[in-house]
C-alpha cells in the first residue's frame, strides 16, 4: 500500500501548492468533498491517468509532481461538464487551465506533446495575422508534430468548396494589434 500511504501523508506534499493553484485559478479546490460527479460526467475520463476528482484530491494534498506530470491536464477538452455539475461549484476547468500554465512555466514533462504544440502554433498564427489562417496553421502544426499527412486527404475537397484559403487573412491596423498582444506579456510581468 505504498501509494495510498503517500497520498494520505500530508507532510509529503509540496508546501503552498494548493494555495498557489487556488490563487491562479480563482477556485477553492479545498472544498472538494470527493463526490466524484466531475469524473462521472467527464467525456475524456476513460483516457486520463488521473480522474478529475483524483486530481482535485492530489492538489489538496499538495502532491505537485504527480499533478503537474499527469496526462489529465493535457487531455481535458475544456468542455465544462464537470464545472457545471460540481455540487461545490468548483470551476474545475479553470483549475485545469491553471495547472497547465504552471506545468509549462515550471518545465514539467508533457505527456501529450501535441497539445502545447497546438496551442503555441495557434497563438503564433494569431499574433502574426490577427485572425487564424487555418491552412497555414494546419501546415505548421503538422510539420511541428511530424504527422505530415494528417487530414491532408480532406484538403482537396475543402479547397474545391472554397473552405480553405490559400492566402492568409489581411486586416487593417496589424501593428497596433501586435503591440496590444505584446502588452499582455508586459502586464503579466508587472
Amino acid at each position, binding site marked *: 500500500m505504498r501509494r495510498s500511504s503517500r497520498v494520505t501523508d500530508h507532510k509529503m506534499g509540496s508546501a503552498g501548492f494548493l494555495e498557489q493553484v487556488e490563487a491562479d485559478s*480563482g477556485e477553492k479546490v479545498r472544498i472538494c468533498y470527493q463526490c466524484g460527479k466531475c469524473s462521472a460526467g467527464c*467525456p*475524456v475520463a476513460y*483516457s486520463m491517468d488521473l480522474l478529475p476528482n483524483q486530481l482535485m484530491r492530489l492538489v489538496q494534498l499538495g502532491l505537485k509532481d504527480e499533478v503537474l506530470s499527469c496526462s489529465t491536464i493535457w*487531455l481535458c*477538452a*475544456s*468542455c*465544462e*461538464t464537470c*464545472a*457545471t455539475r460540481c455540487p461545490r461549484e468548483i*470551476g474545475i*476547468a479553470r483549475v485545469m*487551465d491553471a495547472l*497547465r*500554465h504552471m506545468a509549462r512555466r515550471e518545465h514539467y514533462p508533457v505527456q*501529450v506533446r*501535441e*497539445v502545447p504544440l*497546438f*496551442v*503555441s502554433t*495557434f*497563438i503564433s498564427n*494569431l499574433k502574426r495575422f*490577427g*485572425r*487564424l489562417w*487555418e*491552412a497555414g496553421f494546419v501546415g505548421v*502544426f503538422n510539420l511541428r508534430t511530424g504527422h505530415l499527412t*494528417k487530414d491532408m486527404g*480532406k484538403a482537396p*475537397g*475543402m479547397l474545391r*468548396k*472554397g*473552405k*480553405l*484559403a490559400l492566402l492568409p*487573412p489581411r*486586416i*487593417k*491596423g496589424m501593428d497596433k*494589434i501586435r503591440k*496590444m*498582444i505584446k*502588452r*499582455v506579456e508586459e*502586464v*503579466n510581468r508587472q
Partner: protein
Amino acid sequence: MKLAFYPGCTLESTAREYLDSTIAVAKAIGIELEEIPDWICCGSTPAHMADELLSISLPAYNLQLARRMDTEGVTVACASCYSRLRAANHAVTTDPEKRAKVGKVLGGDYEGDVPVSHLLEPVGEIIKQPGFESRLKQKLSGLKVASYYGCLLVRPPEITGFDDAEDPRSMDRVVEAVGAEPVDWRFKVECCGAALAFTRPEIVEKLSGQILEDARDSGADIVLVACPLCHSNLDLRQCDIEKFLGVDLEIPVLYFTQLLGLALGISCKELGLHKHTINPVPILRKRGITVKGC
C-alpha cells in the same frame, strides 16, 4: 433589429456555409447584421490554455470595437467565440483586478457592458412572433431532427446564461417553427471532443461517434448544430468516425440557419448545402422537401 456581428475565423473558412446561410437568413427574417470592422480572433480554446489575460483581452478588444457601433449589442454564430466573448464580459464585470489589467492591455478601460448573444437568441425572438409561419415558403414536415448543442453554448451556465444547461430547447424550437419534428435523444449536450481533433483524433472519433449513433438510434434524419467546430467533427470527420466504429452512418449535419433557410425558400447554393461532406439533399428530398438549385 440591428446587431453588430462577430463572424469569427472559422466562419470565414471551413464554416463558410454557416456564414452564408446566416447572412441569407438574417436578411430574410429582418435581422440587420453589421460586421464588426477589423475584428480579430477571439483566441478560442488555445488562448485560455496558454494565458488567462490574453484569453480575456482578445475578446475584450473586439467588444470595444463593437461598442463604437450603433447597434443593440453583438451577436455571434460560433459557440466557441460566443463563450469567449461572454467569458471576457464576465471576467471584467466580476473581477476589478482583471478589469484593470485588461484596461492596460487595451490602452483604455472596458467595462464589460456590450451585450453578447448567440444568433439562436435573436432568431428565437423572431420565430415566436405571431405570423412568423406565414413567412415560410414550405413546411419541413416529416423531417426528424436531433438538435445538438454541445458544450460551449450552454456551459458554464454562469458565463453563457444560455437556455437550460442540461436540457436546452432553443434549437428544437427552430425545428418546430419550420414544421419539422424534434427528436428526444440523450447526447444533446455531450462533448464532441472539440479541439482534440487536432491532437488526439481518436478521442474525437469515439465521442463524436457516440453522438451520431445516438442520433441515428433515436430516429433522426439529420443532426442540427450551432457551432462550426461541432460541425467539422461530426460532418468533415464522419468518414474517419465510420472507419473507427466500423459502421455506416451517413447522417447529414446541418447548421440551424440552413434548416431555417430551406423553409424560407432560400436556394441550396446560398445556404451552402453542397459544401458538406455528407450530402443532405437526398434525405431532404425523400422527405418531400423542395431543395432549390442543387
